[in-house]
């Protein structure tokens, strides 16, 4: 499991030159902004950059990757692992972090939350990882949180999630709920003239918290109607009844936060029931990325709207280079969803923070992080907020037949992360 194959990968991972220049430029800019010129110039002695006994040598620094590569969550987490390895190998191609190459130790959380906690402890205590990229579900993050806080580790967490959390030891590179929800609801109200909403979700914390925020926004802030709200056990495959209810209540918008295998069943049955998302019914989801569409089938979800911060089809040079590098490393048939891109940000944001801090020490990196910018992230400009989430742009995309999205709306400004939204709880 262990050790880096980054050097082995390097040959298979040629960067497009523009990309390399762009990134080098970004790194230089943020480094130059942050610290005396002397520091950015060359390598600091190990004793100076590592005062807390992390796994840092004169030539290498060790980080951890902690995702499920077996079990039910492997479906979702594989993309994150791939993105993180890509970022690490690109960073190494540019000379690493503070003059040290990144090696990684990968552990398998096996879709089992206690295993995540155990492996997190191993990565921090035994391997002394300077940072860990990992977790996907909220349950796994909650399981490792006490470990990271106890041993003062550093976790970069990629998934969009329900919010209501802020830790000294975690950076959240995905969006928290309000970032993902409010902009989408405002957009659908404005452009589609929506008056009534039907909220659906799988029955666990993320959809329930998100729908709670959505309901309060719809009824209190926008003054519109929620005509129904329903939850289904995880793995549920029967949606004909709720589809009938939707037909009866005729909501302007179906707001769906259904996950996993249920997603496939839901969209297939929606299509079979003659609900026409291309011409008639508006459906807005925050749980379907390009990854999920692989299983659902493009023809079943064509016309649905998704509210995310990233789509693979985003038209900017940084994203084109990212997609090309990703496919080159992992195969032409790969698709990249929102979380995969967010996972890609983790190693970069950590690198920028280390360089600003001039140290790998966790406390110094955390202190240096707020205000760190990644100007050429595939999703566009992002910046770390004091609350450890990212300022980011929210997008609405429309699903195409081929499983990709057309971006139909983009928030004009960065959306501020607000993990504890007042008035929404």
């Amino acid at each position, binding site marked *: 499991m262990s050790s880096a194959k980054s050097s082995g990968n390097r040959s298979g991972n040629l960067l497009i030159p523009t990309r390399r220049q762009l990134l080098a430029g970004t790194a230089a800019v943020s480094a130059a902004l942050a610290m005396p010129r002397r520091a950015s110039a060359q390598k600091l002695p190990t004793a100076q950059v590592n005062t807390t006994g992390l796994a840092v040598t004169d030539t290498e620094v060790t980080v951890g990757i902690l995702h499920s590569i077996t*079990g039910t969550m492997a*479906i979702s987490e594989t993309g994150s692992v791939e993105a993180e390895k890509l970022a690490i190998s690109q960073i190494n191609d540019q000379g690493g972090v503070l003059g040290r190459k990144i090696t990684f130790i990968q552990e398998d959380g096996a879709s089992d939350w206690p295993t995540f906690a155990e492996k997190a402890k191993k990565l921090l205590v035994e391997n002394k990882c300077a940072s860990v990229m990992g977790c996907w579900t909220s349950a796994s993050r909650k399981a490792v949180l006490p470990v990271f806080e106890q041993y003062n580790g550093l976790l970069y967490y990629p998934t969009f999630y329900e919010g209501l959390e802020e830790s000294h030891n975690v950076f959240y590179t995905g969006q928290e709920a309000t970032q993902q929800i409010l902009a989408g609801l405002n957009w659908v109200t404005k452009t589609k003239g929506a008056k009534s909403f039907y909220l659906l979700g799988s029955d666990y914390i993320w959809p329930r918290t998100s729908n709670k925020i959505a309901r309060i926004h719809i009824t209190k802030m926008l003054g519109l109607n929620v005509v129904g709200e*329903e939850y289904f*056990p995880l793995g549920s495959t029967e949606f*004909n*009844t709720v589809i009938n209810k939707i037909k009866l209540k005729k909501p302007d918008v179906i707001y769906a936060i259904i996950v996993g295998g249920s997603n496939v069943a839901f969209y297939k049955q929606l299509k*079979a029931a003659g609900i026409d998302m291309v011409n008639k019914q508006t459906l807005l989801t925050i749980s379907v990325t390009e990854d999920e569409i692989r299983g659902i089938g493009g*023809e079943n979800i064509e016309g649905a709207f998704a509210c995310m911060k990233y789509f693979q089809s985003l038209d900017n040079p940084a994203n084109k280079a990212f997609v090309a590098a990703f496919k080159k490393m992992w195969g032409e048939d790969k698709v990249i969803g929102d979380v995969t891109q967010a996972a890609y940000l983790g190693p970069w944001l950590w690198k920028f923070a280390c360089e600003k801090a001039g140290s790998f020490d966790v406390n110094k990196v955390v202190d240096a992080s707020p205000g760190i910018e990644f100007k050429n992230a595939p999703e566009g400009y992002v910046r770390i907020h004091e609350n450890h989430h990212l300022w980011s742009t929210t997008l609405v995309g429309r699903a195409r037949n081929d499983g990709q999205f057309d971006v139909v709306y983009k928030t004009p400004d960065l959306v501020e992360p607000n993990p504890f939204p007042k008035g929404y709880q």
Partner: protein
Amino acid sequence: MFGDYSFGDLMSILAMQGFAGLILFSVFVLMALGLAIIFGQMGVINMAHGEFMILGAYMTYLTAHLFQNYVPAMFGIYFFVAIVIAFVASGALGLAVEWLLIRHLYRRPLDTLLATWGLSLIMQQAFRSTFGAREVGVDLPGWMMGSLHVSDSIDVQINGLLVMGVTMVITAAVALVLFRSRWGLQVRATVINRTMSEAAGIDTRRIDRLTFGLGCGIAGIAGAAFTMIGSTGPTAGQQYIVDTFLVVVFGGAQSLLGTIASAFTISQSQSALEFFLDGSMAKVITLLFVIGVLMLRPQGLFALKVRK
């Protein structure tokens, strides 16, 4: 709750809802049939039932690809070929599993439970290694998607009709085989009194193997049919296994009629409750109801008198 709707609206929803209940009923019967045969006739608890279904689903996926690449003109009817292939593949694997594993464990029901559970893990990992951890999308020909537009508020799902059709044909075929063929007679004899059947010259080992194979083959057909309504992934079988056992146990393990009656009861109460409450709540109440009935009638709805 219905004050705002016209009579016509309510009638068409009633019709649609009845149809939704019937689809659910068909789904339940189809997934439980294979298990009922194995569990009921042989007393083997096959925890890998869901994985045999998914094997059928993957066969459908492969067949779709073959047709797309080699005979695109025939793509419209590939599904019927896929059903046959799914049956043969799952059935053949079932025969092999019986020969390698199950036959050594016949008098140890708890061990079969453990062994088939292990088998289900092995199969999941095999699917993952072969087809990848992600779900695959099974392409369907255009005519199988969408719905028949009966009136403004009534749409009849074509895939629902197809699932119902497949269920009816398979159920009829199973009933015919069990109650009208010589082999069926031998199966029933073996269930009622194994020793006596052996004395009468029935090769009960062969009967067991074929029964297990048939049950697995039907699971394969169910899996093929469910590519129309559900997901196809390495662990998708787990989505069905609980409901499947529920239907079989509630119906009474040894009775085909019981399985059908139980599927009908559970599906109708589930879809009616879901209409008035919500998905999760409907499931809770259905489970409570089943537990209640099983407390009063541990043998299930229909029980066969069997000499143990």
